[in-house]
């Protein structure tokens, strides 16, 4: 059928549907989803991965959710908190969106949360991983479908001590909330298992030259744990190798140090890197294989966890909207439905929210390997259904302060 014909047939159908007795929602227009992320600026590539994930899902469902048309409004916040707040105002006040999904950097999550609560429009945080948003400073209207910074680190710390057998580890992490949380979670469980973090180095975000930090690394370490993000992830492994450290101290790290977003730009220096995360593109499940294949066909690259989380966020919105019969205007019910969503077959595995609003999901320990000339995060161990508190009791865990540069204190430094 020609495109024109198709359009006219659809047009006639729409007309007919409009004339007939339509259900109440038909007069309400489309479900509006507001997205904001860094579409320009240094993190633009990540922002595109995120938006692509969401678009891909909406394309799959033909931009129809619960029988209503879906309109996606994409806004650029450049990764700047002030602009993010302005775009939030725009999405809610001008566009009158019913639900939002967005954000990359953890600190923007903190900036937006009070405003989201004020507007009472549900917002999904598929990536922003600031711990306290589902711990000590929960926000009612924020639905986190992603993770907390320390969530993958908790099982990883103990695993590193028990399985890899490293006793003394030097930590080098980006000096901001997300970095502290990833490192803090690792240090807590690693030291409880018997290990020692003997040094903590904190280069500022977007550091280009790591030489001054690499030179300080203590020589009695068994391994180095690195937490890099975005630009730094691209540079660190190479500099680590060039400094002659790779051969002496194996490199482990937080999930973003080796995620699929940077792997295509890295060379052999990344091989062997071990890190935990909620997703790996190499996951050997039919759902994920299909997801990776179609994503590659559409966008010409391997999906990163940014793409997966936003893809799943689209699905999340769909499930919740279906549960309330598409009546997303009823924001209280919509929020309740969003909190109740359970997905058993997302590309990353089964997901549901805990009582505090953070997903319980699988944590994958991944090792960078080369297959067919490409770098992949081969999954070497799966921890099923890990919550943000892992094996700790929530109320006891919440009594400790949020992870920071000085917490947990470095006892063995």
């Amino acid at each position, binding site marked *: 059928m020609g495109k024109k014909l198709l359009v006219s047939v659809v047009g006639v159908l729409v007309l007919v549907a409009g004339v007939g007795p339509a259900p109440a929602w038909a007069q309400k227009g489309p479900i509006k989803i507001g997205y904001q992320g860094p*579409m*320009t600026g240094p993190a633009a590539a990540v922002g595109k991965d995120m938006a692509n994930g969401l678009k891909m899902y909406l394309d799959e469902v033909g931009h129809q959710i619960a029988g209503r048309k879906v309109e996606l409004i994409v*806004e*650029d916040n450049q990764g*700047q*908190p*002030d*602009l993010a*707040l*302005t775009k939030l*105002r*725009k999405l809610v*006040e*001008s566009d009158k969106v019913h639900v939002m999904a967005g954000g990359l950097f*953890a*600190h923007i999550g*903190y*900036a937006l*949360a*009070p*405003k989201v609560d004020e507007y009472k429009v549900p917002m999904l945080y598929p990536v922003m991983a*600031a711990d306290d948003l589902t711990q000590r400073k929960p926000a009612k209207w924020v639905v986190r479908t992603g993770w907390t910074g320390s969530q993958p680190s908790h099982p990883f710390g103990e695993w590193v001590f028990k399985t890899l057998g490293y006793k003394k580890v030097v930590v080098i992490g980006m*000096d*901001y*909330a997300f970095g502290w949380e990833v490192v803090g979670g690792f240090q807590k469980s690693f030291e409880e298992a018997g290990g020692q973090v003997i040094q903590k180095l904190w280069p*500022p*975000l977007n550091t280009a030259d790591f030489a001054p930090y690499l030179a300080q690394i203590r020589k009695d370490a068994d391994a180095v744990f690195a937490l890099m993000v975005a630009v730094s992830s691209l540079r660190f492994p190479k500099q680590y190798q060039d400094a002659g450290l790779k051969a002496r101290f194996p490199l482990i790290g937080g999930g973003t140090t080796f995620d699929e977003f940077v792997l295509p730009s890295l060379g052999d220096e990344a091989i062997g890197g071990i890190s935990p995360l909620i997703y790996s593109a190499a996951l050997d499940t039919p759902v994920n294989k299909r997801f990776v294949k179609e994503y590659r066909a559409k966008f010409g690259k391997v999906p990163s966890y940014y793409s997966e989380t936003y893809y799943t966020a689209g699905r999340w919105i769909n499930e919740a909207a279906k549960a309330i019969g598409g009546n997303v205007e009823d924001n209280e019910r919509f929020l309740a439905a969003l909190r109740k969503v359970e997905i058993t077959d997302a590309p990353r595995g089964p997901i549901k929210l805990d009582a505090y609003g953070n997903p319980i999901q699988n944590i994958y320990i991944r090792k960078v390997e080369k297959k067919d000339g490409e770098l992949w995060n081969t999954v070497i161990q799966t921890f099923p259904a890990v919550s943000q508190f892992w094996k700790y009791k929530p109320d006891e865990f919440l009594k400790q302060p949020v992870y*920071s*540069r000085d917490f947990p204190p470095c006892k063995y430094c």
Partner: protein
Amino acid sequence: MIRLPLLPRHRQIGLGIILLLLIVSPPFLSSFLLSLLTQALIYGVLAMSLDLLVGYLGLPSLGHAAYLGLGAYSVGVLTTRYGANSWLALAVGLLLAMAVAAVFGLVALRATGVYFLMITLALGMVIWGLAHRWVSMTQGDNGISGVPRPDLGLPWSFAKAIPFYYLSLVAFLFALWVLWVIVRSPFGQSLVGIRESESRMRTLGYNVWLHKYIGFIIAGTVGGFSGVLWAYYNGFVSPANMELATSVEALLMVALGGRATLLGPAIGAAAIVFLKNLVSVYTHRWVLILGAVYIGTIVYAPEGIAGAFTQLTKGVKPEPLRSKV
């Protein structure tokens, strides 16, 4: 160029209409446009304060966002942590900005031109670094969120968008009036004199350094005032408020609007706020458009929007400043 004893009639009428529109329009605007207008007024204060340095003193500063940050952090820390009242937060914000400007002035005013640019850049980054690293006070990168709208002890509340807009308008007009009085005063005239020829002013017996120093402190203090407003407007303060990008943007507002005109930079601020926030709604290539606007300004209206407007209405090129001093 614009500092005539009295504004010409058509200019008075033009400004009157703009003011009237600013007063009357809010109830008819969408709340998003209103929030942009509020932003424009607050950035207008910042741009005008910078204009005192750039336009009247000829000292291009690349660290002006630091004062915005100081004012904003004073409000953020005092209100969220100590529940301080708004007048106290305002006073502390202004005093802190003033004090820091007083210290920075001692260092920065040893240089002029490019060197002044570099020193102010470095000093600005010191304040940025402080906000970034002094986590126990500033919460680092996370920033301080949940800053409430001001409560001035007046019978009406500023929590809603429209009252807060009017508060910002009053604050803007107040800042404009203060700066206007300063630049029209003999002191302000001597600042222009210093810009045009330091050595001549020195031989005339002026204490050039002291004039510059006082000008620098006033610019910093008014910059702090814009920061106080910004914190109350946005409800959120973070190191991003005082990044280099913000300082550059302030400088561009002055250049775009027209140096040494006060109102010009305010118009420049409005232009940039609207370009940045509205154009980006329609295209992700908005940075390109912003760039084109800058280039267009430099090529076709080197005196900025205000300068171009003067030329248009008068039909003549503005008199060179030099002849007046």
